[in-house]
């Protein structure tokens, strides 16, 4: 087992190419045990591609990733036992109820039955979906689905928690509420948090360290204060803009987006 002051996430020389396009180019970074780490970048910068490689669902073109001491390329299952993730895109089963989605997650992650029940109730009450627990998810609004995804992601307490734009589309009250819960988890259970967000004030408030990625490369990393003084700005948002420029970005449509469009044509959901 790695000692507590060792880096729990170690990435070196990570690269991902899709044909001619290089989405992630030779990036390296470490995240310390128990740290809250923000991974920031404009749309299409390579954040999600990096998270996919970190979470074992996309194979890197080159480079190494160690999660909690497990080499992701050789021991994907060991790596998967070390983390949990809240995805940016929807990942619920619409044909199951809110509770069934949570229950499914608990069983997949081997959460002990009684503990799972307790936490499921606590979390569903926390995101204010307890009264709707027996309703099918397909009837939920976008915000409700988002809250359910977060509740589900927090059910098992992993060593590392990846949060890919977890609070996107939620109102400020809910965002605050959720970040408090996550910070608590981090403090009490020492869970390492790795998250992405477009809300810079959120990153400034909760992250102990940030890395800024653009065009597939990490252009700066350090504490929020360090970044501000380096760029001579007064907020992380200004520091971010001064590092990445002001032009607007397009995100390439993924295969899943094409399919989602296709599904509408087919008239399912």
């Amino acid at each position, binding site marked *: 087992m790695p000692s507590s002051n060792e880096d729990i996430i170690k990435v070196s020389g990570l690269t991902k190419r899709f044909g001619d396009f290089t989405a992630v180019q030779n990036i390296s970074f470490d995240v310390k045990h128990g740290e809250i780490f923000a991974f920031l970048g404009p749309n299409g910068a390579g954040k999600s591609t990096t998270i996919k490689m970190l979470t074992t669902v996309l194979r890197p073109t080159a480079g190494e990733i160690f999660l909690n001491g497990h080499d992701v390329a050789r021991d994907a299952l060991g790596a998967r036992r070390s983390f949990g993730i809240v995805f940016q895109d929807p990942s619920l089963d*619409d044909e199951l109820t809110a509770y069934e989605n949570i229950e*499914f997650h608990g069983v*997949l992650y081997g959460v002990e039955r009684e503990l799972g029940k307790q936490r499921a109730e606590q979390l569903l009450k926390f995101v204010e979906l307890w009264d709707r627990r027996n309703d099918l998810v397909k009837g939920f609004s976008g915000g409700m689905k988002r809250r359910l995804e977060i509740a589900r992601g927090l059910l098992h307490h992993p060593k590392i928690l990846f949060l890919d734009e977890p609070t996107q589309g939620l109102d400020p009250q809910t965002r605050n509420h959720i970040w408090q819960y996550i910070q608590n988890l981090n403090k009490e259970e020492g869970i390492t948090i790795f998250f992405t967000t477009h809300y810079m004030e959120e990153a400034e408030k909760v992250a102990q360290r940030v890395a800024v990625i653009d065009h597939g490369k990490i252009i700066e990393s350090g504490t929020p204060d360090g970044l501000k003084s380096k760029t001579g700005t007064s907020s992380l948002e200004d520091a971010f803009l001064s590092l990445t420029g002001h032009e607007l970005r397009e995100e390439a449509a993924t295969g899943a987006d094409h399919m989602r469009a296709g599904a509408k044509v087919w008239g399912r959901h």
Partner: protein
Amino acid sequence: MQAVYIIWLRQLKRYLRSKSRIVGSLGQPLLFLVALGFGLGPVFQKAGGGNYLDFLAPGIISMGILFTALFSGIEIIWDRQFGFLKEMMVAPVSRLQIMVGRTLGGATVAVIQGIIVFLLAFLVGFRPEYLTAWTFLLALVFMFLIAVLFTALGTAIASQLDDMQGFQLIMNFVVMPLFFLSGALFPLNGLPSGIALVVKIDPLSYGVDGLRHALTGVAQFGFGTDLAVLALITAALLGLGTYLFSKTQI
């Protein structure tokens, strides 16, 4: 084991909740039973083939299983599309467990569908004297083998597809030929040698033949051959499906 169970249970819940899909998928088998069963019955009888409905019903039951099983396998594309596949792929369970859970789930659903078609056939007049509780049990074994085989095939195909665009292609060039060239509708004796060869290559032929043997006591390849061929191809496709699925990236 728990992971396999919950994945199996999910498939079953999804099936039981889609009432319109269940009802909708019974229209085709019913139409085949009525139109072909009664339409070609007299000709078949005159040609000395005996009761055509008795001959046809096992074929149509196989058809119901084939369609449902293959679609259950292909459904993994929907899972990918609606994001739920990610939830399974990042979980600390092996790809084999996911594959086994999904395949057993899809196969269970397909067997239920097969039993419903059997009941439909019974309503239409399918009453083979050969049938006993024991042979029905044997029929269930064959239904299950057909179901597992084609769920695994569906998964193998789906892992190579990005979206449902190719679905029509699969229907026309995989599913329909598998069904029409399986001996589900016609006996094998006296076929032109080209067709006879194709029928012998089609794995569904052995499923139909085994099922027909279990339900009506008539078999053309022989019971042992049916069981051996089905079991072998099922094992191979399960292996292939698992391998291809384990290569899936998101």
